[in-house]
């Protein structure tokens, strides 16, 4: 025991000494960073997972010597629990501000992020939004708001872009699609986005069909789609309907590619439920551990070792957002919120510095990261593989998909 303690002491001393020799200053105060997430309540599991990305990045940054321009100061996470409620989010944000955090990151839900950023803007606290997607968040001309996540409307845009690029790549450009979505707000608003994007990219929408969730049978609808003979079927479905639709497409021999919008099609249960029939299905996603960016395999491996779960899109976004903040602190060389804000506005983390599936994280006038984009995954041999954008792909895509009769 005593032996062990001595070792720790020696190590500690060594660490301090190395700091002193490297930067010639005594270790500075910790830099407090506010993390505002739903850590209790029904969405807590997602909030906790979001937090993992921050924690993971903070540990890495501190282990690599903290913020060097601030004398190797370490980042310290200060948690605020929104409980998934806007009003509690606002009080928690005010508490964080009083505790003297340099910036705040959060708050996962768009419905919470929108109102809390109203307050952070007034208090002039830099706010980084890693995950919440609603377009309206960056529509208010805020100066202290930086949104790393893609816009909600880009899900539909990237889905259509993918369909166009993938089909053109194999020399069979898609001319027409059918949109099939469930009839609540999620399906309808995504459907609106798909119609707009299809028009923009010159793809004809043959029909747009809204269906009620949890139908007992959808054969008639699918027969109608078969008759229209689209080049692809674009879906917004929860798991139960996604499974039923795929089964019905097999029965009726509808060979058009299935392109899902996250939700049911990205659920691992889609694969376990359908078995081989799930193969070749496409879906939109935020990020995956097979995205071809430098360091991703190693980072996701360490993440899995530390937390016991796979790193997912949210965790990748919160991880990257933490690096965005560290980079800005480094360049600002100050914990002054105004200076930090100006440094954030100048952010440019490109190529190997960015694990997200695009080149540069930077921010436009509205605070949005303009290059942010989604990825498309295809189920190949029972696994989601990133196939688009092509430069981040880990597998070659199969387009068009093989006919049901030949599978």
């Amino acid at each position, binding site marked *: 025991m005593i032996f062990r303690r001595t070792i720790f002491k020696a190590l500690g001393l060594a660490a301090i000494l190395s700091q002193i020799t490297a930067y010639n200053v005594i270790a500075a105060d910790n830099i407090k960073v506010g993390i505002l997430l739903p850590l209790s309540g029904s969405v807590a599991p997602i909030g906790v997972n979001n937090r993992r990305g921050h924690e993971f990045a903070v540990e890495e940054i501190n282990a690599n010597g903290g913020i060097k321009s601030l004398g190797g100061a370490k980042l310290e996470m200060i948690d605020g629990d929104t409980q998934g409620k806007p009003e509690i989010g606002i009080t928690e944000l005010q508490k964080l501000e009083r505790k003297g955090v340099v910036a705040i990151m959060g708050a996962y839900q768009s419905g919470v992020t929108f109102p809390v950023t109203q307050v952070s803007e007034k208090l002039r606290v830099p706010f980084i939004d890693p995950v919440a997607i609603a377009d309206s968040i960056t529509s208010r001309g805020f100066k202290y708001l930086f949104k790393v996540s893609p816009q909600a409307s880009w899900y539909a845009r990237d889905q259509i872009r993918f369909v166009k690029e993938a089909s053109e790549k194999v020399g069979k450009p898609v001319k027409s699609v059918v949109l099939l979505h469930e009839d609540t707000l999620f399906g309808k608003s995504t459907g609106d986005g798909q119609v707009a994007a299809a028009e923009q990219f010159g793809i004809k929408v043959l029909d747009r069909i809204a269906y009620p969730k949890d139908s007992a049978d959808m054969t*008639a609808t699918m027969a109608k789609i078969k008759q229209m003979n689209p080049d692809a079927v674009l879906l917004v479905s929860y798991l139960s309907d996604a499974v039923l639709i795929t089964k019905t497409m097999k029965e009726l021999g509808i060979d058009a590619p299935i392109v899902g919008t996250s939700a049911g099609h990205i659920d691992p249960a889609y694969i376990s439920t359908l078995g081989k029939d799930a193969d070749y299905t496409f879906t939109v996603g935020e990020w995956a551990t097979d995205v071809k960016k430098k360091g991703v395999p190693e980072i996701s491996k360490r993440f899995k070792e530390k937390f016991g779960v796979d790193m997912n899109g949210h965790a990748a976004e919160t991880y990257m957002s933490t690096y965005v903040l560290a980079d800005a602190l480094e360049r600002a060389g100050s914990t002054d919120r105004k200076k930090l804000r100006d440094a954030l506005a100048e952010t440019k983390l490109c190529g190997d510095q960015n694990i997200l599936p695009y080149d540069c994280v930077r921010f436009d006038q509205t605070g949005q990261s303009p290059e942010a984009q989604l990825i498309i995954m295809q189920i190949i041999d029972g696994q989601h593989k990133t196939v688009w954008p092509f430069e981040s792909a880990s597998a070659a895509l199969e387009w068009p998909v093989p006919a049901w009769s030949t599978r």
Partner: protein
Amino acid sequence: MATVYLQALISGILIGGVFSLISVGLTLTFGVMKIKNFAHGDFLIVGMYFAFFCYTLLGIDPYLAAILGLPIFFGLGWIIQKFLIRPVLYAPETIKILVTVGISLCLQNIAVFFFSPDFQTVQVAYGSNTVEFFGARISLTRLAATALAVVVVIGLYQFLMKTRTGRAIRACAEDGDGALAVGIDIDRIYKIALGISTVCVCLAGAMMTPFFYISPTVGLSFTLTAFVVVVLGGLGNLKGALIGGFIIGVVESFGEILMPEAALKQVATFTIFTLILLFRPTGLFGTKLT
């Protein structure tokens, strides 16, 4: 376009058979005991999970599992009648409803607890096999389920008409006190009735597994459909439940393609439902209420 209509007709008939098989049990218990069984649809998952585990653990084909499960399904109905329904049979209507709703919640949550809320399917090789029919496709597994539904309903009808127990069930349905007076053991008859009812719905569940998914809450929407079918066909009427099931199946199927939005297909269903009740308040085959 003709093929689409033909396909709608075929798939409507095929899902209609499933609706019939589910509804027959409901109409039987209502006719005999005047019980509105809100847990009826949830018994579907008993058949489904039974077939699922037979297939994944023991490699037993779901159709064989459906037959093997018959005594279990019947016993389940028997036990539920004996311990849960019987004590409240003469209680006020609200109590009876609460008991069946309670059974429904129990079944769902037992399934969630033991089998997780995840979706499952029975992945048999022939699950999606079809035959061409004038350009439309007929799913063989759905056809099997529908054929079975018709066979079961006809068999049940014969049973009620020809056998001694069947006649006793009908006697109880017509007049419980009278049946008691002539020496019929109505407690036993009621247990048999709920047993048969659960057998029908569990059979439907097991037969659906090759073409449908399994999840703890799958029964909910089928309970509602079964009530519509039963009221449409005439409360307590077997023939009504059989034909009502096919009507609802076909109307929903055409509703999907003819309504301005597929999401409005239930508007078509309930319009037909309302119209039939408007002209025949006791349902298609219902006798006059006294």
